Structure formats: C-alpha cells, structure tokens
C-alpha cells in the first residue's frame, strides 16, 4: 500500500497477484456470475489505486479491508443485478453451506488448507441458527430483513443471532485472523 500511495502503478499488479483468488472467490460466490465478479474486482482494485488513503492501517489488515470492500461492492452489485431465480438457488446453497464441513475443492497449498480448516472448525462451533444467519448475510449478501424472511425468524432474533454468532466466531478464530494469502 505504501508503494501505491507513492504512485507506483506496478504495485497494483502486485496487490492483485496477492489477493486475486480470495477476492474473486468471494465475489463470484456472492454474485454467482464470473463476469460480474470480474467487474467487481476491477472496480475494487482500481478504486484502491485511485484513492489508497481509503485504507487505514490502524483499523485492520490490508487483507481484511480489501476483502470487506470486495464484499461490499459485490453485495451492491447483486442487489443491482438481482435475479430472483439466481438468488433463490444461491440461498438454497447457502443453507446447505451451514453444515460444519462443506464439500468443496480445496487448494493444494497446505497453508490454505490449514486456514480453511480453522475457519470451518470455527463455523462448526456456532449454533446452526447463528451459522445460518451469518452465512446468508455474508455469502448470500442478504439484508437482515431478508434473512429473517428466508428463515421465518423475527428480525430482532436475526440481529441477535448475528451478533452472538460473530462474537463466537471471533473467539474461535482468535484475534489473529489468518486472511492474507501471500503466494
């Protein structure tokens, strides 16, 4: 980020090299569309170049911030491009994801396996209703009210579950969240 702040254009490519996979995986999971996901990535990395001062180191790591921006932009995009059919399908998949261990392809790198396993273990420590609420909101991009409607739960209960679930998740993960995938 220091290089980007200094106006070094090549630093954007280095940042992209470092985070393109988790960023793209997240965007395509939310959007269910590779083309839209790539559009989101381009928008995010270009915005980082345009205004690197948006990142404040005192508020977290580059990885956390960048993936939060990707999430935010992808959710905005899915709400713009909302396809009810696609979202319904994704919602069903999201609900299936609430199982502690999801069937998925795992990257070869041992580091990634360790990180993913740690996250899945942490997610597995949540109650099924907490996991369901956080999964729908994070991976599905649903608002709390939409989560309430999808799960047939009062809105206030959804809010409480998300808070309790996130507190538990943070406890399970510890303060050192392993999100940076450097390779």
């Amino acid at each position: 980020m220091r290089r980007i702040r200094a106006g070094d254009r090549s630093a954007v490519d280095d940042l992209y090299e470092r985070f393109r996979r988790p960023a793209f995986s997240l965007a395509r999971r939310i959007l269910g569309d590779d083309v839209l996901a790539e559009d989101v990535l381009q928008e995010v990395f270009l915005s980082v170049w345009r205004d690197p001062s948006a990142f404040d180191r005192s508020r977290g790591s580059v990885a956390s911030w960048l993936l939060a921006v990707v999430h935010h932009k992808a959710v905005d995009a899915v709400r713009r491009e909302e396809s009810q059919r696609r979202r319904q399908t994704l919602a069903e998949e999201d609900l299936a994801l609430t199982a502690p261990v999801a069937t998925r392809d795992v990257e070869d790198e041992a580091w990634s396996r360790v990180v993913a396993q740690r996250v899945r273990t942490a997610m597995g420590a949540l109650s099924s209703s907490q996991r369901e609420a956080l999964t729908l909101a994070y991976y599905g991009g649903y608002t709390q009210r939409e989560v309430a409607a999808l799960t047939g739960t009062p809105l206030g209960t959804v809010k409480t579950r998300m808070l309790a679930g996130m507190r538990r998740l943070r406890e399970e993960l510890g303060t050192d969240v392993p999100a940076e995938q450097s390779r």
Partner: protein
Amino acid sequence: MTHDDHQTFDELAVGWALHALEPEDEAIFTAHLPGCARCAETVAGTTGAMAAMATDLPAAEPSDALRQRLGRAVEETEQVSAPALHPRTPRAVPAPRAAEDRPRRRLLPALVAAAAAAIVGLGVWNVVLNDDRQELQTTVASQSAAMHVLLDPHRATLASLGDDGQPVATVVPHGEALEVVAHGLAVNDADRTTYVVWGMQGEQPVPLGTFDVKGSQMELQTVGSGLTGLDQFHEYAVSLEPGQKAPSTPTDVVATGQVTS
C-alpha cells in the same frame, strides 16, 4: 449508556460490517459510529472474521484478461490527491455511491442514509475549517435539525420526476407546519417563482406552503403555519410555480414521495 444499553448498537455494528442493515438502521448507525470506540472495535473485529470466512470458499482464478484490463485501467487513471484535511468516518468500507446504488427497494432510504453521512462529514469539515465559533454553532445546529428530519420515521422522501429519479427533498409534518429539507432541488428565482408543497389527497392536491431554494447547501425550512390535519397525508409533492403564491392546482410537479411509515 450502560453495557446493556449498547447491545442494540453492537447488533447494528455487526450488521453494518456485513453490509446487511436495512437503510433505516444504516442511517442510525452511521450517525452513531463516529466517536464510538466500542463500535469501531466491533466493526474491525467483524471485518477480520469476514475475511477469514472468505478463505473457506472454493478457490477460483479470475481470467488473465482481467489482469490486463486492470493494468490498462490503472495506466489511464490518475490518483486523487487527498486534501490536507480529509474528513473521515471510521468506516472501513467505502459508503455506496448514490449513482451506483439503484435497486428498487433500497434507493430512497439508502440515499437518506448517504445524506445523513454527508452531514456528519460536513460537520467534521466545519469543525476543522470554521474558526467563527458562533457561526459554527449555528451551522451545526442547522445540520443537526436537518438530519433529524432526514431520519424521522414519518418522513416522505420526494424523488424527482425527471429521468434520474433521484431524491430531491424530504418532508416531515411537525405540529401545525411542515419541515422541508431540500437536497437536490434546483435553485429558483425567488422574485419570480416559488416551490409549493402539496398534500396528495384523492384527486385534489392540497397546497400546504411555499418555500425557495437559495443554494445547493442542504437547509431545513419550516413551511405553512397553522395548518391542521397534516398527518392525514400519505403522499406529498413539490411543484415549481410562477409568482410567489400557491395556486389552487399545481402547474409543474417536480417531485413526489410517500410517507415512510
């Protein structure tokens, strides 16, 4: 505020970081977050956990073409030069830009939230830049009053009838008058024209008061006085009229909107 009293904001902080709040909750939290260390910590912690959740997804590789497109875009794009005194909120994620955010169900409230955030940011600017204490107090009080209107649960946000459909004014009945905040209406020639607020009731709109827009800055105005039954209207409109008095029927309706609740 006790620990338990803060539970509501703790819940909002998690929802805010997840970008999962309803627009009305987002507006409330956006106003609360600046200056709340506890919520800033909750947001930061949630953001970190979200990043970890992103690692538990099937790995996917974007196309090589994206890297090339991005490279070209970076070459063609200049960086913004940050002002020496940059107003900030603790938000880790950029606020959605109004022009990008056009989902049917979220447009108006989202823009209200953005407007509220803009007021908070404007307040920071004023604190830094304005050394006239009296003027500062007046400005802050005005901004605070305007924000209360923007966040009022009984507000009607009026969208332009032009092509863009952007929100241009917010109306709230208050006692025997209407509070109006213009945040996008064109400046009018006060000597020759006036804006009129109408209560929409059946086929016959009711003129409720007049006001002028003198500049681009958001300003709270109280229009009409001694009116009764203002809360019976579920929809309001604004028209631009020749002269300085309200006609019996609107000539050029420029914006309409329904009461939120």
